[in-house]
């Protein structure tokens, strides 16, 4: 043997090699025979049948989008449902004369041709023989017209798909949200199993809980005839509906709140202070989510987006407003805790105090005279709180405001939640690179200046004061159920923090807030409910700069008018509901405008719990003279 020897390696041939190779040969013959038989079967035995199937490509794949989960309120009322709707689907390959077919279709639907042509052209990457959805949710007449004239419409078919349905229209629209077609960006994420044309949650809980709500798509393999009509179903993968959500929301109370706010712009949030459950969340102006479910038209969308009042925004979590005098509760808490005020502290109010080169006015031009801590809250004396602000400085105020949940996200789990602003010296330096001026503290002390909060924050704020200082995460979801009922997840109250206020402080605040409503000199006496001890605080936050004549601005253009606030909880001894209500540009004070709205909600709430829910809400007439400007 020539050449160098390769390294020594075992030359031993595996034992029984020949036998094993014979077996391998046999296996190879067997496998290829099997394949050969299969080919004989497909190509010869069933060849003719397959040939005819291939000629018209008769097998189609129809996707069955899983229906989205149903959403209930806390008492089992359906807030979001599904209803069947008919979509017009067009397979261009099934028609010889596409123009003629579309012409006919436009005629039967009473639609304009260009819009139909546009829909056909839209999808760029479409597998052949897959339908294009031309129109969603055709009305009954359209369905009948298409069914009758099927022969004029080769390639056009109707597909039944579940469509989102909001039985109460705009009720709680912002919390519930809406659905829309998934966009390319969402598809690219690749997270979900969505396909182009599917509907996905776009806002509110439809979006936040989309993963639970959206079902799993199934599909059908159908054989169609030459006109694209289905002949039979060859194979089916059933779709799975999404999970059912039960909310903490109280549909009945929500309706009362929506009606009480009426056509005014603003927001109302009601919480259960014992656990953070959201009972009511109103934001006005609202919209009807049903127009999204059926596929919103371009002009409708434009109208919503361009509306200067931003109806799509959820004011309850996105609107940031100066809290005005409602903020005095946080200042009062800070004053008591820091010892700059005691229940016996009193301040003389002569209608305002000078500070620097500015005169800070009290809302009551003549002044309140000598006011105690208690009276200062009951009558909302600005001068008292200017004084408290001076004594405290801004940082302690900010600290207690944060302990009570202001300036922080509430963690409710809704998109675009805003945190509001609780200013302090650090914030000022960071934001403007400027030191804090003590004059600004005076504005902060009455909830003006840089201070802003969302209605949800204010509701959680008053709930925290009501329950003795425990800050819960606001929760609108009570329970998730699997569609087959096998799996149930209950949400639990979650404590985010403790305000750590002394019992005496809380008692002082509760007693003063009670008298805001229950005392005849209180600014919030329009919130009285017969038989129930209600506590609250009014607020009127200025939109225009301090010092301008409020009378005049409130008669002027709407955008310069004040916002009216009322925050409340009841019953005082054992609070079970806490409410924040803001009416934007109300042109009046919190006591005059917002307190009566809260009164209606409370009256309805307690009329139900004390008797049959059907009982009409008691209209409690507030005794005493009406104050033209109650704050």
């Amino acid at each position: 043997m020539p050449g160098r020897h390769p390294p020594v390696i075992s030359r031993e041939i595996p034992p029984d090699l020949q036998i094993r190779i014979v077996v391998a040969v046999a296996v190879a013959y067997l496998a290829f025979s099997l394949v050969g038989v299969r080919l004989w079967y497909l190509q010869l035995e069933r060849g003719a049948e397959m040939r005819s199937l291939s000629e018209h490509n008769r097998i189609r794949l129809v996707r069955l989008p899983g229906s989205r989960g149903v959403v209930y309120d806390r008492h089992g009322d359906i807030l979001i449902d599904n209803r069947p709707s008919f979509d017009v689907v067009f397979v261009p390959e099934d028609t010889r004369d596409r123009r003629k077919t579309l012409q006919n279709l436009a005629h039967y639907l009473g639609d304009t041709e260009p819009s139909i042509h546009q829909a056909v052209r839209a999808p760029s990457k479409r597998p052949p023989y897959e339908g294009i959805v031309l129109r969603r949710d055709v009305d009954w007449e359209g369905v009948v017209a298409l069914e009758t004239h099927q022969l004029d419409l080769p390639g056009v078919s109707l597909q039944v798909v579940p469509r989102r349905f909001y039985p109460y229209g705009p009720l709680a629209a912002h919390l519930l949200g809406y659905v829309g077609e998934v966009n390319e960006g969402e598809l690219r994420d690749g997270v979900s199993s969505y396909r182009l044309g599917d509907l996905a949650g776009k806002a509110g809980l439809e979006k936040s809980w989309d993963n639970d709500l959206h079902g799993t798509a199934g599909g059908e393999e159908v054989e169609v005839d030459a006109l694209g009509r289905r002949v039979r179903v060859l194979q089916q993968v059933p779709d799975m509906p999404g999970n059912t959500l039960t909310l903490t929301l109280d549909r009945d109370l929500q309706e009362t709140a929506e009606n009480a706010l009426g056509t005014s712009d603003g927001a109302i949030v009601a919480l259960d202070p014992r656990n953070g459950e959201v009972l009511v969340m109103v934001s006005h102006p609202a919209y009807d989510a049903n127009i999204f479910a059926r596929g919103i038209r371009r002009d409708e969308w434009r109208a919503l987006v361009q509306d200067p009042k931003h109806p799509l925004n959820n004011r309850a979590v996105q609107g940031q407003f100066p809290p005005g005098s409602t903020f005095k509760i946080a200042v009062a808490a800070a004053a008591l805790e820091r010892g700059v005020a005691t229940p016996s502290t009193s301040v003389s109010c002569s209608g305002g105090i000078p500070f620097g080169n500015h005169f800070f006015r009290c809302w009551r031009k003549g002044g309140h005279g000598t006011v105690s801590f208690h009276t200062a809250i009951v009558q909302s004396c600005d001068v008292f709180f200017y004084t408290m602000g001076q004594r405290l400085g801004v940082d302690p105020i900010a600290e207690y405001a944060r302990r009570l949940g202001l300036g922080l996200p509430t963690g409710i789990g809704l998109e675009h939640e805003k945190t509001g602003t609780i200013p302090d010296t650090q914030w000022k330096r960071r934001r403007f690179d400027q030191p804090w001026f003590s004059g600004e503290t005076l504005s902060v002390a009455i909830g003006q200046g840089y201070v802003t909060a969302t209605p949800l924050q204010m509701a959680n704020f008053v709930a925290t004061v009501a329950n003795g200082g425990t800050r819960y995460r606001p929760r609108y979801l009570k329970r998730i159920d699997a569609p087959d009922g096998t799996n149930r997840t209950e949400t639990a109250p979650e404590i985010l923090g403790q305000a750590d206020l002394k019992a005496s402080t809380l008692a002082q605040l509760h007693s003063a807030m009670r008298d805001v409503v229950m005392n005849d000199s209180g600014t919030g006496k329009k919130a009285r409910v017969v038989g129930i001890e209600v506590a609250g605080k009014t607020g009127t936050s200025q939109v225009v700069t301090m010092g301008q004549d409020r009378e005049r601005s409130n008669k002027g253009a709407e955008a310069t008018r004040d916002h009216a606030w009322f925050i409340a909880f009841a019953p005082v001894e054992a609070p079970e509901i806490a409410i924040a209500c803001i009416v934007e540009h109300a042109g009046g004070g919190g006591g005059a405008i917002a307190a009566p709205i809260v009164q209606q909600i409370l009256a309805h709430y307690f009329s139900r719990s004390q008797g049959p829910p059907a009982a009409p809400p008691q209209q409690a007439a507030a005794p005493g003279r009406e104050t033209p400007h109650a704050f």
Partner: protein
Amino acid sequence: MRFDRRLITHFEWLLPLLVLAVCVLGTMTVYSATQATGEHGPSTLTTRQGFWLGAGCLGMFAVLLFDYRRLEPVALLVYLVVLVGVIAVPFIGRIGGGSRRWIPLGPLSLQPSEFMKLALVLALAGHFSRTRPGPLGLREAIVPLVLMAIPAAAILAQPDLGSAAIVGIVAFTMLLVGGVRLRWFAALGAPVIVLAPIMWRHLKAYQQRRILTFLNPDMDPLGAGYHVIQSKIAVGSGMLWGKGFLQGTQNHLNFLPEQHTDFIFSVFAEEWGFVGTMVLMTLYLAIILRCLLIASHARDRFGVLLVLGMAGIIFWQAVINVGMTTGLMPVVGIPLPFFSYGGSSLLCLLVGTGLAMNVSMRRYYF
């Protein structure tokens, strides 16, 4: 290296001729299959396939120039280099068809999982050539199983179920035909075979679907069924004589997602009919039988296992691919050897063919 006249007299003619016949049919079908897809154009992909065919032929003849036994000491090294490539794919790889399988290399992109098939065959053949003579027991099978499991897991994670499956099946084939006692297979395989279906049955339908789609994202359960139906229609509609070259209707409508790679057989079957598919199947069978014959005459264990491994790669990929396109097996991404579009696969298969020829030509050396 001196050249031996015996290399000429014993030159292996049959195997390369059979293989090249399949390659030519494959390239033609790639041309037909890509004719309809506007995306790359027929010429680009066919030219690229032609380039790889040429490169593969060069590789095939290049590996004839040295005694295959010289590969034995470097087999493990080759394996490790390819393994690094396989593991690097998730980090530097290029995404295609829902998973990351390719490593870009200048104008080309390589698919390390294809190279892994050949590298594993080399590594296992090398390993067995060093084991003690006599029948092989369980202990000799542990190292090969580890050598197989690491790349298989890495490929599975890409995720590429098809290639991972082939790596596993080929390794088992080599163990089985190469001499590990049958009873160990029974001992290892029995519990798996018994337990797997039981566990599978206990899973809920959506869980099964989830596992399947996790392993193989191409396999949208319904979509895959649809593709199989379309593929079966394409194959069947070829009937006896086929619709003729470039005359297939099914493939030109883009019903098949991978019509120039995994589903290429249905394009061929549609255009060439039963006659064509029989010719192709006969070519594959002849290639396998020729490899088995070479293995039975090889002079050492390394050569035997090298050729058996190659035969395994060709056999299983061909049978599974055709089984899948004709609806006999579930859809997994496995190319048809020498036939599907894909440079890495073609290059490796041709180099592997060269190695088998090498073993055949040097069978009289002692």
